[in-house]
């Protein structure tokens, strides 16, 4: 069984569950982060804007109050440089050119009057001119030569000049980029961890279900006294196991009841049959002539009655899925060859040819005695009903986890009236003198093994019976490919 219980994780439903759960989890956290990111970005913007507006106002104030003498430019420039040092989110290290902040003052006429910042400020001034910047509401401008836009706040002085303070959004974007990178790293870690945890948990949960399935499949086919494993936890899986066990209990009782009835019936009928047969045999040893003839025919009747009784009970039990099997490895190829060897002379007497199409040994787990009796039924049928001069062909092949036995003849086929109900009890052709159990028995044996029997008429003529038998006793074991 060890090879059967081996459970390839790739086929587990745990994958699907974990994938979906992880996807939902990843999307959720991603959305939460997007919200957070948005909030942080806006907050940074707000802080920058507050700083820009404040500093621009201060600078405008300074510019207003400072006397317009030779020192004016230096004073304003120094104040502006000092302001640059207080830039929020400033990256202190690094030899980057100090282009993070610029200060620009225009005269009343609109000409550039004072510039503090990297370069000569012409590009910045052009960008400011093309944008409309009103005091009090900082605006983004794209400056030629700089990849990252500047945030610019304006302030007006009483003398008609304007103060522009620009702050590169580089630092703000850098902060956000770091935030994203860190989040992405953590997010990946969390998603992987989450996937791992969900996968491990579902697999553990499903392993209980798998054990239950295995046990149940084993129980259904062989041993009704066994029970599926239960756990002490009070969860759904444990409820499932308990419910299954409860159900098995009732099935076992019903089966036991059925077996008791069929056993009692068999016993009560077989005992008198044994006595009758024994007495007949004893009287046969001393009988002569016509008397012997009638005893012989009575003996034959007793044997037919016994066979009928056995088959009836087998069919009855099989219809209730209660036929008791004793499984062992059976090579269908070998069985068919022996059967053909046994029936060939009788068929040849009737001028019926028989052929076997098989690719060699094909072993299945089955009740050998029942398989023999089932095949004997089919051979008997052909022998009794196929008109002389026809041929019978057996084909044995393996199809997935099943062995397929196909019996074909080129005779008249099934009577259309009974073809549909062929596998029912008491259904037989008008010409048949059997008890109408043969095909029901064939179906019963196939079903008891977890297989099936089907029959149809061939075109242009002939009958075909296909019997599918599972190779292994537990076709629903989870490792079986389905």
């Amino acid at each position, binding site marked *: 069984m060890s090879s059967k219980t081996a459970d390839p994780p790739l086929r587990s439903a745990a994958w699907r569950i974990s994938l979906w759960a992880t996807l939902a989890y990843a999307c959720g956290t991603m959305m939460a982060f997007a919200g957070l990111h948005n909030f942080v970005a806006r907050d940074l913007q707000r802080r920058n804007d507050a700083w820009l507006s404040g500093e621009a106002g201060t600078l405008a104030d300074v510019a207003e109050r400072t006397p317009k003498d030779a020192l004016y430019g230096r004073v304003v420039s120094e104040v502006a440089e000092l302001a640059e040092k207080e830039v929020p989110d400033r990256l202190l290290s690094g030899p980057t050119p100090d282009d993070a902040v610029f200060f620009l003052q225009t005269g009343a006429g609109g000409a550039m009057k004072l510039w503090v910042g990297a370069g000569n400020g012409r590009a910045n001034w052009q960008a400011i001119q093309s944008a409309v910047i009103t005091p009090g509401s900082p605006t983004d401008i794209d400056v030629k030569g700089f990849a990252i836009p500047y945030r610019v706040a304006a302030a007006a002085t009483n003398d008609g000049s304007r103060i522009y303070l620009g702050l590169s959004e580089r630092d703000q974007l850098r902060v956000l980029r770091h935030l994203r990178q860190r989040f992405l790293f953590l997010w990946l870690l969390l998603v992987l961890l989450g996937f791992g945890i969900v996968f491990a948990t579902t697999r553990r949960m499903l392993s209980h279900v798998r054990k239950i399935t295995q046990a149940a499949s084993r129980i259904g086919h062989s041993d009704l006294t066994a029970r599926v494993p239960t756990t002490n936890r009070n969860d759904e899986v444990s409820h499932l196991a308990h419910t299954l066990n409860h159900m098995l209990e009732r099935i076992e009782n019903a089966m036991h009841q059925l*077996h008791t009835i*069929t*056993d009692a019936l*068999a*016993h009560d009928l*077989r*005992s*008198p*049959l*044994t*006595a*009758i*047969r*024994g*007495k*007949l*045999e*004893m009287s*046969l040893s001393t009988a002569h002539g016509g008397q*012997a*003839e009638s*005893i*012989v*025919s009575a*003996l*034959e009747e*007793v*044997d*037919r009655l*016994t*066979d009928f009784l*056995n088959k009836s*009970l087998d069919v009855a039990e099989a219809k209730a899925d209660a036929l*008791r099997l*004793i499984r062992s490895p059976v090579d269908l190829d070998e069985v068919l060859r*022996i*059967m053909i*060897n*046994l*029936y060939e*002379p*009788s068929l040849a*007497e009737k001028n019926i040819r028989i052929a076997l199409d098989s690719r060699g040994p094909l072993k299945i787990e089955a009740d050998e*005695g029942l398989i*023999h*009796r089932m095949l*004997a039924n089919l*051979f*008997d049928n052909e*022998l*009794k009903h196929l008109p002389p001069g026809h041929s019978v062909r057996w084909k044995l092949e393996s199809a997935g986890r099943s062995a397929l036995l196909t019996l074909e003849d080129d005779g008249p086929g099934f009577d259309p009236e009974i073809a549909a109900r062929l596998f029912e009890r008491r259904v037989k052709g008008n010409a048949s003198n*059997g008890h109408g159990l043969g095909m029901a028995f064939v179906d019963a044996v196939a079903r008891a093994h977890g297989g099936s029997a089907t029959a149809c008429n061939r075109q242009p003529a002939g009958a075909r019976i296909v019997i599918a038998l599972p190779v292994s006793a537990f076709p629903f074991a989870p490792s079986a490919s389905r």
Partner: protein
Amino acid sequence: MRLLLVEDEIDIQHFLKTSLEEAGYQVDAAIDGQSAQRLAADHLYDILVVDLGLPDQDGIGLILRLRQMGVKAPVLILSARRSVDDRVRGLEQGGDDYLTKPFALAELLARLRNLLKRNSPAGSEATRLRVLDLELDLLRREASRGGELLQLTPQEFVLLEYLCRNAGRVVTRSMILDKVWGMRIQPDTNVVDVHIYRLRGKVDGKGQQPLIRTLRGVGYVLKDR
């Protein structure tokens, strides 16, 4: 050969006792487990025939108790039940045999003989079988009658060998199917008869004394005298 028969149905017990005595056994019959135990304590039996459904106790229980008492003789279990109990299978593995009711007398006798043979020290296996003027070479798988080689198929040889090993005794169709083809089936056609018919055509030639006899309703017998 002393035989203990444990069977509660009087009718069956009666005909079994008569038939077994006719076959040469000295038969003591018990109607239930109690009396069987008493008999087994007083006498030494070579073989036992025990029905599973006894009125006072389970047949298997009786067999196990007899074994505990030191009874070592092989047991042929008779049963009218449908299912073969696991414990019966255990006994089968232990060297006992099992027969389902109803059965042919010939089969009962054959199984008893087998059980007794199994329990007696095995003689060296013969390589030749001889019945009247019929001779089988088991190593070369050849049969001859009156010195003349018979053209038999391998299957026919196995069938003839089985008949020869049971020469003088009746074998039923079920026994032939079981021993020659290895199948416990009950065909409602004459498959075995056709094989016998073919074999007879080869063994019993024109002008020769017919060896293979058909006993209608019972089976076949290979004459040994």
